[in-house]
């Protein structure tokens, strides 16, 4: 029991350090962020659950998602695919039962993961990702994608690249906001979420809501690609910290 507590406190320390570092480096505190072009601070903790094969919790500002990955594990015969792994994503809302919105998000996350996971290496197995929303304060889908990626890395599932999610919001007067809060999302004219890979920052998935022009889409994509660099740098830092103790 004592060992448990120790490792927990060490991890908590690590998380707070991360917060402080990111905040000082990019000045991305949610209160002090500039006119739209910065991310809220992130924090990530890996391997915090004992039962799943991989787990991670990801925080973006006040949005927080917990992810667990099981796999490559046994698969039901009805879901078995003979030449690749069956990928399954389950998204649990904070309260109540999952509805249509959750099902649609699950599908988007699953398609993103299928693009990067090398499922052909583990045929006739299942890889299950369970995402639990802990608090939703805007950019939920992006946070879910980030949590899923970190949990997949933790589980050691073979992947050809990492991925991250970035949400952009366009104001009524056309100003661009990255990583919007729930309030900003509500007031925005359009909300766009992209999933990008770490090798060439190529688009893996995009979902949009609202009205925007072609040029604005390109602008949002470019901003998301720039922001993804920060996320990937954060991934590297937090993974290096995890492997520093061994």
């Amino acid at each position, binding site marked *: 029991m004592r060992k448990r507590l120790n490792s927990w406190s060490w991890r908590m320390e690590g998380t707070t350090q991360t917060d402080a570092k990111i905040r000082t480096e990019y000045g991305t505190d949610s209160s002090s962020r500039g006119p739209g072009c910065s991310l809220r601070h992130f924090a990530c903790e890996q391997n915090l659950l004992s039962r799943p094969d991989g787990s991670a919790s990801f925080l973006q500002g006040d949005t927080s998602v917990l992810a667990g990955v099981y796999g490559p594990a046994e*698969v039901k015969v009805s879901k078995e695919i003979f030449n690749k792994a069956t990928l399954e994503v389950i998204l649990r809302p904070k309260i109540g039962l999952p509805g249509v919105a959750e099902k649609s998000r699950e599908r988007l996350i699953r398609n993103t993961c299928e693009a990067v996971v090398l499922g052909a290496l583990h045929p006739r197995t299942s890889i299950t990702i369970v995402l639990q929303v802990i608090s939703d304060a805007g950019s939920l889908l992006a946070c879910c994608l980030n949590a899923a990626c970190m949990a997949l890395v933790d589980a050691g599932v073979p992947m050809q690249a*990492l991925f991250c999610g970035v949400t952009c919001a366009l104001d009524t007067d056309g100003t661009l906001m990255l990583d919007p809060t729930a309030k900003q999302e509500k007031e925005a004219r359009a909300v766009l979420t992209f999933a990008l890979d*770490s090798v060439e920052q190529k688009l893996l998935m995009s979902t949009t809501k609202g009205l925007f022009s072609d040029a604005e889409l390109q602008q949002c994509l470019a901003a998301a690609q720039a922001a993804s660099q920060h996320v990937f740098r954060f*991934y590297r830092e937090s993974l290096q910290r995890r*492997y520093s103790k061994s």
Partner: protein
Amino acid sequence: MTEAAAVAAESLAGSKARAARTVLGQVVLPGEELLLPEQEDVEGPGNAGERPLRLNAGVRSRVRVVCGPGLRRCGDRLLVTKCGRLRHKEPSGGSSGGGGVYWVDSQQKRYVPVKGDHVIGIVTAKSGDIFKVDVGGSEPASLSYLAFEGATKRNRPNVQVGDLIYGQFVVANKDMEPEMVCIDSCGRANGMGVIGQDGLLFKVTLGLIRKLLAPNCEILQELGKLYPLEIVFGMNGRIWVKAKTIQQTLILANVLEACEHMTADQRKQIFSRLAES
């Protein structure tokens, strides 16, 4: 927009394939590409075909590189598919420069059967002439009742459902059901077979097992000095341990579980404290 372009250009420069030799022991992430030593001095893979003709060119290109877990061949480079520390082992036939085995040392919990691995399994079913053994992989392994020392058609081994088995994989690939045996190629048990009644089985990460089974592992030597013990390591992350009393068994199990995230100094402290009590 200009800022975005600048960042993108920087990232391209940043994610350029690094030489495998320079990142040994460092953390690599999925998606990274690594250059092999023989490609470093031909300035990029593009002009490999226009290399000046050499008398001993054939000798130079005969460098054998083996991709271990977490790495894949991608053209003439190595693509990292798992997160962990990059490791390298020189080929056994002396240092020919550049060859050998590269792999990624990751800390995962899920086991994937590998041919030749020694594992601890739990018998889950008996059906006809085979046992089904749970080894923690994606499907149970099969174990023939003839694959025990001294077993014949008439003389069946005494194996019950729920027994622990220490065995070795003879068939393990992604497309087929894994198959275990409890004898070596000479038909000897060689330590394998059913594990005795008492003792404690617990699970740890696969990285810890590899660390403990490394030659001259100091943790094991320290444990051996502490109490007399019997211990079995399965490459699938399972450890079975038995000491004289239940209390000693539990202490050993706790120490083994805890030592994964400790530094060498912390370990020394723990062992000295245990030796006193």
